[in-house]
């Protein structure tokens, strides 16, 4: 299976050519190389898929590490799950590369940008194609690094650099969990290869403590990467990067790797109902939190960012009720419509001469027709109106949630009410009414070039019909996705009898479906009443008051984190660096420099004094350590001796 090894190879080659040749390759060749690499990779996925038959294929390129007790191969695993993820990544990835060719064409770092994009694609492919947890981790770190590079791509101002750093560090906190999960797996299973781990996992009972620990640790990793409470605040800030980056990394691919990881480890999660319940509630809370913040944002990309946070919450909600394939289904449809929305937003920003505030827009419908229509398609899809793709996947998740817990379902419906509202608010304020920007902006308004509108159209079509890969059972049409994915969940079925059992009657299913459509329609009408005439424009920042202010300011979560975590840590670090190190150590060193003028006696005193204080600290350290280690036994020994 040479195709499998070629899938990650092309983006790597693309990265090397554009990266090493940065500044030497002509500007016309750069996008061809970058996009071509991505497209070739997509073709390889297609070929690999056509040659694929039922059972997973393992390609072990070489032994990464093989010592006693630790055997990890540099191996790829092609199965149903990785095929689906690869299609999304390379497919949407290629479209976004194409879009970037137009969008970034004025940027001086054009070649660098494509190099980073290719590197990202390579890491993401490693993440989903890897045959063991370590490969996944390598990809996991790789995408984090690329995300850092791409968010901070415009490193002109410090805000962007800070956003990049925040994303990286928050992800690292999540990675702590992931790494600990990996070490736990290694200690308890003795291997990291998926197939072996899952095989051995079958011997465990449902609710086993070790499995709970492993799944919880891995989920912490997912929280970081997929922006769940409490590690979600980096994602909206990550919008500082170029818009295609937001579309590719912060909507369609990287942020869904947490979901991929859980679906990949579905046996382990099925064995741990406690973790699943936890995931479901975290997902639900994130979905609601993201949606409420999205209600009042005025930056077009911020609205989409919070919407992404919220939609990721839905995916985790689905996973939490063991509807793994539904969660994955939503990953796919979300990749289509959210990439579409982000690229559409990019096209709007392009037209608006880099202004992102929707309060300055309005009436763009007639000015940029293609963007507007495709954006509308995306908006309908995410709102859950049939037969657009978002409806199928979200409805499937909610149906499973209903079965699991009615309260969760009601809250989920509330979330989808808000989703439809904020998305249509965004749409109406941006495209309806009359133009509110400056004369200069108005003069510049133009539709984007072909290389940008083509991906929009393709994604719009996919957003419209993408849901047909999974029809609800009640329609008696095939659910191709479920059928295809079925072998992935074989082990889950074996270990937990409650997996995959559906109790919902067809009538109830229809009622639920009707309810969610009704909620979405009411919400859209509501949004239309408020914003449809284009006269109601969100007020300026200073006039936002009361509860709305709380939500507008994202519940002050960033501020809270700053107070609770960042503040103390930098204070400690500052203390060490500036008080202990500077005052105590540097001061002396400096004063020695100045002290050349002083008498030599004086210097001598200074030096002896300092070294003396160092030694004092050391001696104190020794004393404390000896007491800590031997205090109790020393005491008892003395007692013994005295008694004698």
């Amino acid at each position, binding site marked *: 299976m040479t195709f499998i090894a070629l899938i990650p190879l092309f983006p790597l080659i693309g990265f090397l050519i554009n990266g090493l040749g940065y500044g030497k390759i002509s500007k016309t060749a750069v996008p061809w190389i970058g996009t071509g690499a991505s497209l070739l990779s997509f073709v390889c996925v297609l070929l690999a898929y056509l040659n694929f038959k039922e059972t997973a294929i393992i390609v072990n390129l*070489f032994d*990464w*590490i*093989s*010592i*006693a*007790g*630790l055997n990890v191969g540099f191996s790829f695993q092609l199965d149903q799950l990785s095929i689906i993820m690869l299609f999304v990544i390379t497919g949407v990835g290629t479209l976004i590369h194409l879009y970037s060719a137009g969008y970034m064409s004025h940027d001086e770092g054009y070649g660098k940008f494509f190099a980073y994009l290719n590197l990202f694609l390579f890491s993401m492919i490693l993440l989903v194609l890897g045959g063991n947890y370590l490969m996944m*981790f*390598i990809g996991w*770190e*790789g995408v984090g*690094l690329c995300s850092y590079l791409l968010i901070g791509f415009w*490193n002109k101002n410090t805000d962007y*650099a800070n956003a990049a*750093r925040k994303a*990286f*560090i928050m992800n*690292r*906190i999540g990675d*702590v969990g992931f*790494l*600990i999960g990996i*070490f736990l797996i*290694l*200690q308890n299973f003795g291997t990291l290869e998926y197939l072996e781990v899952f095989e051995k996992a079958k011997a465990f009972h449902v609710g086993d403590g070790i499995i709970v620990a492993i799944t919880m640790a891995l989920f912490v990793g997912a929280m970081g990467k997929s922006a769940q409470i409490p590690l979600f605040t980096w994602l909206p800030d990550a919008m500082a990067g170029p818009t295609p980056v937001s579309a590719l990394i912060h909507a369609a691919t990287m942020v869904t790797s947490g979901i991929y990881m859980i679906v990949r480890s579905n046996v382990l999660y099925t064995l741990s109902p406690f973790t699943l319940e936890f995931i479901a509630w975290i997902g639900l809370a994130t979905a609601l939190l993201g949606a409420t913040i999205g209600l009042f944002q005025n930056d077009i990309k911020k609205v989409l960012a919070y919407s992404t946070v919220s939609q990721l919450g839905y995916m985790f909600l689905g996973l939490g009720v063991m509807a793994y394939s539904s969660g994955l289904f939503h990953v796919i449809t979300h990749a289509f419509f959210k990439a579409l929305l982000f690229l559409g937003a990019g096209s709007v920003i392009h037209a608006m001469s880099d202004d992102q505030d929707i309060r300055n827009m309005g009436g763009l419908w007639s000015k940029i027709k293609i963007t507007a229509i495709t954006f509308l398609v995306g908006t309908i899809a995410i709102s859950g109106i049939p037969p657009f793709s978002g409806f199928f996947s979200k409805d499937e998740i909610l149906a499973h949630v209903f079965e699991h817990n009615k309260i969760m379902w009601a809250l989920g419906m509330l979330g989808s009410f808000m989703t439809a509202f904020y998305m249509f608010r965004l749409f109406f304020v941006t495209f309806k009414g009359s133009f509110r920007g400056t004369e200069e902006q108005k003069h510049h308004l133009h539709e984007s070039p072909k290389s940008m509108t083509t991906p929009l159209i393709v994604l719009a079509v996919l957003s419209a019909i993408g849901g047909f890969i999974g029809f609800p059972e009640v329609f008696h049409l095939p659910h191709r996705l479920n059928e295809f994915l079925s072998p992935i969940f074989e082990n889950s079925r074996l270990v937990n009898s409650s997996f995959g059992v559906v109790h919902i009657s067809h009538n109830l299913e229809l009622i639920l479906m009707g309810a969610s459509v009704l909620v979405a329609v009411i919400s859209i009408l509501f949004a239309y009443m408020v914003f449809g005439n284009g006269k109601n424009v969100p007020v300026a920042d200073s006039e936002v008051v009361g509860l709305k202010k709380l939500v507008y300011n994202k519940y002050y979560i960033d501020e809270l984190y700053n107070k609770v975590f960042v503040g103390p*840590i*930098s204070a*400690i*670090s*500052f203390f*060490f*660096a*500036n008080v*202990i*190190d500077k005052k105590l*150590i540097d001061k002396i*060193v400096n004063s*020695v*420099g100045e002290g*050349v003028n002083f008498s030599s006696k004086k210097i001598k005193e200074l*030096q002896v004094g*300092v*070294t003396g204080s*160092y*030694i004092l*600290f*050391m001696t104190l*350290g*020794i004393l404390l*350590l*000896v007491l*800590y*280690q*031997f205090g109790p*036994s020393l005491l*008892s*020994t003395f007692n*013994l*001796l005295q008694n004698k």
Partner: protein
Amino acid sequence: MYPIIVFSVSGLLMLFLGLSVNKKSLLPYNLLFMLVGLASNFLDWNAPGLYFNGMLEISNPIILVQWVLIFAAILVSGISSRQFDDTHAYPAEYYAIMQFALVGALIMVSFQNLLMLFVGLEILSVGLYVLTGSDKRNLRGNEAAIKYFLMGSFATGIFLFGVAMFYGATGSFDISSGNSVANNLLEGKMFFWLGMVFIFIGLLFKISAAPFHFWTADVYQGAPTVFSAFMATIVKTAVIFALFRLAAYSFNLEYENWSKFLVIIIGLSMVIGNVTAVFQTNFKRVLAFSSISQAGFMLLSLIGLGAQSYGNLGFYSLSYALATISAFGVFLVISSNTIVEGRPSENINVFDGLFSRNPDLAIILLISMLSLAGIPLTSGFWSKFFVLNDAAAKGYFWILILGVLMSAVSLYYYFNPIRASFKKTDLGKIEISSLSKYTLYVCAALTILFGIAPNILRSLF
């Protein structure tokens, strides 16, 4: 054992060569001697046993570590090219002392008798005191040398006190005699335990583990950069393996009695090293604090003390040496090109715009920083992975969490030079001597190679 003899002789030869040949050809001689030393180690391959009346032990794993030491010394010599060209430098002496210090380091990884450990430690330390102050016109260097000497002597005193206790408890200096007290009464064991703790502390000082790290930043900053690199790599490797030998052969039955406080020291080193490095502006100080935290990570394999720990430590040492030497090497070239107030600037901002001034150096710096931070596909990732796995095997999960968190903190300061190097600048190109260039290429290439295929190195141990 042969390299010990080779370097003892070649160090003397070096001093005589200093009188007869010109300065520029001393470095090639030095490299030649080191290669001879490296090769002479083959003679001992597959001939394990005790030598010199049970004073030294030679076995294949020990030879591998000795190779790591000699190889690191070759790399350090490589980046020293053109550094000693001015009239006030005496390269013959420096290289001779480096070779003598190397003898000490080689003894420290193969001792069978605590007296040999002491001899090795002192040969290494005294050489370093001199090298630290070798730039006689640099006030800071002089102060650092005195400081290092005073504190080093203090640590040696503690170490010797520990050895005396050990002898008192066991009646022997042989490291295997540590196990003979296993069944002794509590009163007799008290001396042994105290000896053990003091021996540990004396050595922990040398690898700058917290809270015995106070000298590190001053000394790294004050010493000429080449010797800071020597200190950061060769000394650390030699001492950590000395500690490992003691832990594995003398004190393994007392694991419960030293692991408790060692874990505290590891935690302290990681926290103090990383947290203090964040706001440093002097790059040598950054690397000094980074070396404190790396010492914490290395000590994890002592806590692990499993069948794989020795190899893990070997991998860690080489990978750390490669990354550190390339960081120091790149810094050395740039800082000697950026003179502020008559001295090479050591501020982090010397890296500004490096990518446009010399892209190769910028890439090497990038690889080195990523490796030190433990990012995958560099050897630094694997070294951290191995030692953390070691700690996990013993169930020390809190130190695992702390370690991973602290390596997240470390990204902050390891990324500073990287970001600086991609800034815009209109400063001119930087020239670099071909020897240091190739040395740096080798470091970077091996860092990546061992990152992609760690098995090449790891399976040797």
